[in-house]
């Protein structure tokens, strides 16, 4: 950007293992796919399961990314993050129900327009809620983990109950828009259209997020803030504002994930966010608290493993994720991509 070096001498050369180290987590994804390929007898089932695993992983990533960044940046652990998922789902699905004429039309363009409207409404609602949550619930307990856990859990209970007050205690069923129902067949494998869409959205979001974090000044501030917030402030940046922004963005992403998850399951309940939080916790722990890349890899691992195991031995699906978490923590106690914290 500013100057090019005259030459490129190498920094100290490390051994093979040390140089491979940073890439090992990424390699786990093909490894687990390979495991699926070996364990699952039919190629077409494997393909179907892989797509749905990736779709699930992408959605979990979207929902989890905000939480891990919020932690990395301000050491704030938000146990109420799941509530943004529920609220997003309820707002988005309500919009879709209102726009039924658009979702029932056999036109992909109209369907996508309805989904876009629902997603934008959900993200706006959860963004505002996130802002309020940060101010009212989280801000007074900066620096105290124990209180953070308790208070955000309390906030979760309250908002969940408010959802029930506003929308009633019954679960709401919803059909996917006309053009996204059904599956396409590729190489003998049936792949649901909606899951392909979810994979696409997730991949695009990951790329955008990575670009933002790597190539923009705000991204630099966030990454630097994760490592040493005090120094970022000493350079003249108001970390607190950045943090609130990240909190809002993370909440809005959770809201987006909520709409997507709701359409994926075709049913929503006030407790859905809390249930997904369990997967999110596993993902952020194995990824390394504070690491977006780790969160992405972790989400894909969990999504794939969950789908493979659910096919092979349905009852073991949830336990398999616990097993994955144990295995990874035995390998790297701080998660796959540990976040360096300056002390």
């Amino acid at each position, binding site marked *: *950007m500013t*100057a090019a070096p005259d030459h490129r001498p190498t*920094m100290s050369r490390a051994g093979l293992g040390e140089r491979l180290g940073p890439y090992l987590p990424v390699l786990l994804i093909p490894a687990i796919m390979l495991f699926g390929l070996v364990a699952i007898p039919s190629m077409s089932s494997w393909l179907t399961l892989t797509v749905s695993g990736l779709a699930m992983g992408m959605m979990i990533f979207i929902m989890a990314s905000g939480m891990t960044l919020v932690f990395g940046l301000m050491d704030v652990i938000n146990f109420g993050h799941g509530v943004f998922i529920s609220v997003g789902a309820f707002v988005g699905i309500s919009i879709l129900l209102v726009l039924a004429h658009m979702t029932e039309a056999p036109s992909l363009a109209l369907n996508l327009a309805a989904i876009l409207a629902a997603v934008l409404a959900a993200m706006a609602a959860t963004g505002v809620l996130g802002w309020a949550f940060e101010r009212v619930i989280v801000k007074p307990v900066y620096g105290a983990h124990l209180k953070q856990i308790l208070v955000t859990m309390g906030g979760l209970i309250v908002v969940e109950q408010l959802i029930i007050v506003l929308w009633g205690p019954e679960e709401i069923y919803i059909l996917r828009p006309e053009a996204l129902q059904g599956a396409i067949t590729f190489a003998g494998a049936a792949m649901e259209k909606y899951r392909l869409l979810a994979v696409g959205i997730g991949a695009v979001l990951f790329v955008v997020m990575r670009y933002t974090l790597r190539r923009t*000044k705000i991204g*630099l501030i966030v*990454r630097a803030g994760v490592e040493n917030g005090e120094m970022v*402030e000493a350079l003249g940046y108001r970390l607190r504002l950045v943090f609130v922004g990240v909190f809002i963005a993370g909440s809005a992403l959770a809201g987006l994930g909520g709409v997507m998850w709701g359409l994926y399951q075709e049913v929503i309940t006030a407790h859905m966010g809390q249930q997904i939080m369990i997967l999110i916790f596993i993902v952020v722990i194995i990824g390394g608290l504070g690491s977006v890349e780790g969160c992405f890899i972790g989400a894909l691992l969990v999504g794939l493993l969950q789908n493979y195991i659910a096919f092979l031995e349905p009852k073991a699906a949830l336990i398999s994720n616990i097993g994955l978490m144990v295995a990874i923590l035995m390998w790297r106690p701080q998660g796959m991509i540990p976040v*360096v914290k*300056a002390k």
Partner: protein
Amino acid sequence: MSDPILRLSGVFTDIAQYHILQGVDFEVPRGQVTMLLGRNGVGKTTTLRTIMGHWRARAGQIVLDGQDIAGLPTPAISRMGVGYVPENMGIFSDLTIEENMILAASSGPIDRARLDWLFSVFPPLQTFWKGQAGNLSGGQKQMLSIARAMVEERRLYLIDEPTKGLAPAIVSTMAGALRQLKDQGASILLVEQNFSVARALGDSAVVMDDGRVVWAGAMAELANDASLQERLMGLSMEAGH
């Protein structure tokens, strides 16, 4: 001599239940290098951190260029033109050298001429420009930390032990860089344990003990009086380091 760039009067700082600073008074004259000296643990680093706003002073005034900055948030103090090199260097090891420097130039793009000057002072920064800061050696990290403070012209530089734990060759690079900064007429408050560096650079000196300033005067006066050093700092700095 015009009014000082920085003046502390009666500054008290507590960390948890400990009273670390107990009424610190001193001045940093404009365009000079002021050495902040004293044994370990007497409050030098706390003084710098209090000026930066990392710790909040319980009482007292910190006046920067005529404005009381005690109680202002750190970013505001920084934006008033204070360059800070913390004791632990504060390098963002996950970022490249370039990204570290871009962040340090908080008021806009990096000035090309100034960067060339910094490259001439600290050649390794140019060499590893696109490399991760975390992979630098200790001395190179210290260069980066100082270069970040110097990347823009600041009203005041606060520099905390820039030569700590460095090899002699790198110490002289540091001293040379600070000398160049001084020659440009910068105002610097420098914590330094290496006495030869202190004597070479310092115009005036402030000696702290037990959370207070116990002596302030010309650096030359302190440097030439071994018994004064003995009395203030418990050792003759000539012998140490």
